[in-house]
């Protein structure tokens, strides 16, 4: 594993995107630092985060420790109607019938702008659950603005919570301006993944709290039942 580091939200990696001292690397580190400043101290631990691009194909890897039991993390991840809770850039989402009885088909539309570069991406993906509870996601290219795409979620028990690994490969079928385009896409991916990480933990903790409202301990005490003042990124994404 390249450049694996262990750090909490209080620190930040110097190679969040594998870019060394590149501008992208420094900005990725800045994004982590901003997240650290905006996230409650009891939040989970980010172990590894990186994004790479080669030939128009983007890879992203996230490894984290979430302060909630695996069943709650799994329940949050598989709450497909509420998929919009994961990232504020989702402007449309729905669960569709899948031709595969074993799969759930989820459609999302993402709109996001960074400087003068905007993306409008539609993803229709089939999601399978493995016997272990891990999730396998495969994009349906003919219904998406992706030439291809796939992802895996692995959830394992961890002292005090869950160890979660997310790995994805995405090949967007949109015009990406040369030179600066991939940098913006990578930066957006890092930011969105970090946001999803923070929100996954929040969702899992809410579920844990609702399942055992009288329970104390780390799994449920990091978030109270009072609504939070503002999200980690200051944008919408909670709600119903």
């Amino acid at each position, binding site marked *: 594993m390249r450049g694996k580091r262990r750090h909490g939200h209080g620190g930040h990696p110097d190679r969040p995107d594998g870019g060394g001292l590149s501008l992208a690397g420094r900005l990725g580190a800045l994004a982590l630092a901003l997240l650290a400043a905006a996230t409650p101290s009891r939040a989970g631990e980010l172990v590894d985060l990186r994004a790479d691009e080669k030939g128009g194909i983007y890879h992203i890897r996230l490894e984290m420790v979430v302060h909630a039991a695996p069943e709650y993390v799994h329940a949050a991840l598989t709450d*497909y109607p*509420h998929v*919009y809770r994961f990232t*504020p850039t989702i*402007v449309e989402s729905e669960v569709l019938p899948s031709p595969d009885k074993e799969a759930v088909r989820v459609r999302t539309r993402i709109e996001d702008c960074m400087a003068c570069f905007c993306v409008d991406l539609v993803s229709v993906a089939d999601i399978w659950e493995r016997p272990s509870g891990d999730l396998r996601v495969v994009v349906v290219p003919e219904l998406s603005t992706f030439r291809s795409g796939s992802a895996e979620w692995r959830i394992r028990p961890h002292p005090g919570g869950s160890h979660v690994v997310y790995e994805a490969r995405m090949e967007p079928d949109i015009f990406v301006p040369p030179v600066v385009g991939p940098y913006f896409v990578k930066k957006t991916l890092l930011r969105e993944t970090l946001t999803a990480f923070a929100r996954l933990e929040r969702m899992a903790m809410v579920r844990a709290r609702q399942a055992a409202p009288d329970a104390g301990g780390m799994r449920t005490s990091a978030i109270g039942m009072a*609504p939070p003042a503002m999200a980690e990124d200051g944008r*919408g994404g*909670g*709600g*119903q």
Partner: protein
Amino acid sequence: MNGYCALLGILAAAWMAACTASLPVSFHRDVVPVLEANCFTCHTAPEGEGYRKTGLNMASWETLIQGSLYGPVIVPGDSRHSVLNMLVEGRADGSLRMPHGADEPLSDADIETLRRWVDQGAKNN
């Protein structure tokens, strides 16, 4: 002559539409009645079902802006990315369209009021 009248009609309609779009939306005058008629039953503390499930209390501007257990539902200035607008406009999964249950969806006019209020900064005015 008929063409001239039609052109005038189109210009008048466009002018009225532009005026309506730029009119400031008041939270207390315009938005609260919409929320009161469609959302308060479920989304007021402490007994509302929606409040108990999500923590979203719409009883005041402050609690509405505060959001739910999952985060804010309003992005001031950006209705496209606001969860409140997404849910009343039916842009999330159909099972989540607000208001829930047997209630009718919001009218186009009410949806537009909420959209303009959020786009204008979701002010407490």
